[in-house]
């Protein structure tokens, strides 16, 4: 796949690099599963306190927070991984002549 290249003499500070990563269907499904679980746990936590069930509410809150944190960490780690392994590319509107 062709990669855009930076114009000669250009510096890093003049451009932002935007990379849109395609997620696989499996990834999208996992994130939806994560979101459903988070919503259910969060609702359970809030309504447990409303029901005066403090222990259940506390435990559910911890689970919900842990689940949220886990999702954030996974997303951040994936982002860092891609940043480390991918080539930095700049888009200058010129057709790239690099062959695949």
């Amino acid at each position: 796949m062709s990669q855009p290249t930076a114009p000669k003499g250009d510096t890093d500070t003049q451009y932002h690099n935007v990379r849109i990563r395609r997620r696989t269907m499996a990834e999208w499904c996992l994130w939806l599963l994560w979101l459903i679980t988070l919503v259910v746990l969060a609702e359970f936590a809030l309504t447990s306190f409303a029901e005066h069930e403090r222990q259940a509410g506390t435990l559910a809150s911890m689970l919900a927070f842990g689940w949220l944190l886990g999702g954030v960490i996974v997303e951040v780690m994936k982002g860092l991984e891609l940043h480390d392994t991918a080539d930095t590319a700049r888009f200058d509107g010129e057709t790239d002549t690099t062959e695949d």
Partner: protein
Amino acid sequence: MSHDNPSRRDFLKTLAVAGATVGAAGTVGLTAGGERLGQPMSGGIYRRPWWVRQVAQPTTGIDWTRIERFNAENTLLGRGLGRYTTAEENERLNLSYQENERRRLTNGEQGFSLRENALHNAFDSVRDGMARSFLGPQLAPTPAEQGLESWQGSAEENTALLKVAMRQMGASTVGVVRLDDNTRKLIYSVDHDGKRIEFEDIERAYEDDDKRVIPYRAQWVVVYTVQMSEIALKRAPTKIAQITTTETYQRGLMIQNNTQEFLRGLGYQGLGEATLNGLGIAPAFAVLAGLGELSRLNRVITPEYGPMVRIFKLITDLPLEADSPIDAGIARFCRACKKCAEACPPSALSFETEPNWVPVGEWNNRGHEAWFEDSVRCKRYWHEELGTNCGICFSVCPFSKQNASFMHDLIRMQIATVPELGGIVRNLDDAFGYGVQKNPNEWWTLDLPEYGIDTGKD
């Protein structure tokens, strides 16, 4: 990597994850839409979630050939412990109850102090002062007195009418049982006050010094539940728990009086409980009316409120549509759970995995399958140790939940559909702290809903 031609591994991985996601989303969706997909009870007004299935036979067995009409004086509520102990022992136990109550009151113990005592006595004395009768107050004008014909409607219309009216009066759930040669056996032969209950082929019911007579044409038993406060009963065994029991009986009596007068106003008869828990066997009628299932508590557990209800009944000649028993996985769950039996201080409840046909004592009728309890042990504990009624078994039951959280619906749905996970559910119930006695003093600081109950069914 090209996204246009996934590998077999990627394809299978995607399929598995997509399947899990659809499963999870579907589970949540099916639970959330539970009532919309469920069957209505008779009358067509109230619809249960789809996992509460209407069935032909109750989930605990009945052998009608072995059932005989029961003398209510044999129950612990009738002549109480005096029926099953000597006169001296009975006297000792009564004194013990009074002494325990007095000691706890004088010492200002949590849940037994003056304020709890005063509130309980308020509900108790008002309830005792309320009119209660077999024939009803007989005050409301009848259609005939107003120059009108009696109400005429189809059985389904009448059932809807009555159920809506009783919900307005404060009933939580309402069901109907048709009286026939079998179900008439569930009407007490003798009521708690010693009066016989008989059936005759007559137009109007009547009562004299010896008996209460039900016309054969009064063929429908209207069974209704009144919700207790789970918030209060989780303080068992204290006066606060007793408060909600007594207060619920008060509301049940008010509903009975209102219903009797409503039926009178339509031109029909409403024959109620002349004594507390009188007329007939409440749990039996509740099971047949589809209000719940018989449980290890040897009481009915309802899908909506668990065991946190009191059950009442009255008989009418208004043509109604009968309900069916239900299967919501409750009795099946009881086989694995046993939490109530483990929590019962005098070990009055059965530890057997399966229900059986043999009553522990004469306080229970024969001819049906149950986890029969030792009621004398239970009542003795109230007298010798507590100085109040108990209710621990009600409070620890995993079905004793309020209805604010969606998670409770998810669990109820799973209990009904995947009974193999019953043990895990029971352990999770413990882990999340359900069933632990709540602080009685804290109850006085809560922003309580009316009657201490949440009237939402889910």
